[in-house]
């Protein structure tokens, strides 16, 4: 029996079922505990970054190489003949997919990965398409939450910062809502969670609440997911007035639950002070490391039958 993700495109979190998300998380844990350096031997994976994203690219390429596969590709589409000669994405995808066994891509325009999946003969993994989706970030977040809590079920999860433009928090909310989690949204009004996410939560009868500061809820949480409030979205006076509510400091963690873990998609600027790094709650650097295991798991599942068929 094939695993349900074998030869599938990974474009958007809402495309994945709860069972498929669990399979990816279980596989990431298995690969983290028992590396599989031969799994993609003799396989070629194309790494197509039509816009630069160093961390995501390095994480994907490390994942391929740790599984024994080879990487071809480019780090910035603007510097390739694809970008300079004006070839359509459709034509580029047809050619690239004929060279490789799978490919992951980052593109500045929303919908690029979905379009690629319709013209590719091999599985496509979305590494971020404009402001739309970045599903592998969500998969690594889910794996990290599972690793630290032992479950994804019924957790109390707060999201802090730029909830309007942060595609990371949109996708993670969509995924965790399949597991009956309760949400706390902490953001300036100008950067509140978009209506379509709120409407989805209402339709699914998911419990959530809106807050003005981290202190209001921090002692109740299992996961505190921080993101950066971008200074450029506010004028200087407004930013100075507002930012203290959305900065996490170590002295705010004195009465939190023992199992609390603080996550952040990185890079951080000043929204988590460095004194938090040495507390037992900080887990953002481990989270970044987990990105490689989560991407290894995903590539292993879409390119082999090794895991899902068990």
């Amino acid at each position, binding site marked *: 029996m094939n695993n349900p993700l074998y030869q599938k495109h990974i474009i958007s979190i809402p495309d994945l079922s709860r069972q498929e998300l669990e399979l990816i998380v279980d596989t990431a844990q298995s690969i983290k505990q028992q590396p599989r350096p031969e799994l993609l031997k003799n396989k070629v994976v194309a790494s197509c970054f039509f816009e630069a994203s160093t961390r995501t690219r390095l994480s994907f390429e490390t994942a391929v190489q740790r599984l024994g596969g080879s990487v071809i590709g480019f780090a910035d589409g603007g510097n390739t003949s694809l970008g300079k000669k004006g070839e*359509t994405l459709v034509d580029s995808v047809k050619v690239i997919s004929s060279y490789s066994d799978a490919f992951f891509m980052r593109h500045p*325009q929303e919908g690029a990965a*979905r*379009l690629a999946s319709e013209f590719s003969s091999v599985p496509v993994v979305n590494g971020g398409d*404009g402001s739309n989706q970045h599903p592998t970030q969500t998969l690594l977040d889910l794996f990290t939450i599972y690793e630290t809590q032992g479950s994804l079920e019924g957790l109390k999860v707060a999201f802090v910062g730029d909830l309007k433009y942060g595609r990371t928090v949109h996708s993670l909310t969509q995924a965790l809502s399949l597991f009956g989690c309760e949400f706390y949204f902490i953001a300036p009004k100008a950067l509140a969670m978009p209506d379509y996410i709120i409407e989805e939560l209402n339709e699914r009868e998911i419990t959530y609440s809106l807050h003005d500061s981290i202190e209001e809820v921090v002692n109740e949480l299992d996961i505190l997911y921080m993101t950066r409030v971008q200074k450029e979205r506010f004028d200087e006076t407004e930013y100075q007035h507002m930012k203290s509510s959305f900065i996490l400091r170590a002295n705010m963690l004195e009465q939190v639950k023992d199992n609390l873990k603080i996550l952040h998609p990185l890079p951080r600027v000043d929204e988590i002070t460095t004194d938090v790094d040495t507390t037992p709650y900080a887990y953002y650097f481990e989270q970044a490391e987990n990105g490689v295991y989560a991407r290894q798991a995903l590539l292993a599942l879409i390119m082999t039958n090794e895991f899902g068929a068990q």
Partner: protein
Amino acid sequence: MKKKLQVEAIAHGTVIDHVPAGQGIKILKFFQLSAAQERITVGLNLPSGEQQQKDLIKVENTVFDENQANQLALFAPNATINVIEDFEVVRKFHVSTPEQVKGVFACPNSNCISHNEPIDSNFYVRHQQQDIKLKCHYCEKSFDRSLFSELD
């Protein structure tokens, strides 16, 4: 008392009735009905029992296919289409909102990949209370009807 027709009867063609007042001109423009050189009669702001006022369009020698009828539902969800032969209504049906609309509207998101590639736009139609929203298959963003210049 004999009812007097406010718009002249047609021999063959289609009568689109129960169009919300104000939508008639938009429908003419969107479907490019005048381009076919057929005779078209239009009634605007006609009295209507159900809607108080309605628009009505009669197009001679033209029959709406199912796809056009579904697209019509985006402008006029309660419209009825009457197919006329020899001055008689031979078929009458209500339009129904399509689940998907392909290749008709440009995505209002200017950064959507559908603008730059040799593909049809593609939207999923979702009912929300009394209105509809169109969700782009590619960029995954949902839009109110008012954001589509073609429907304006």
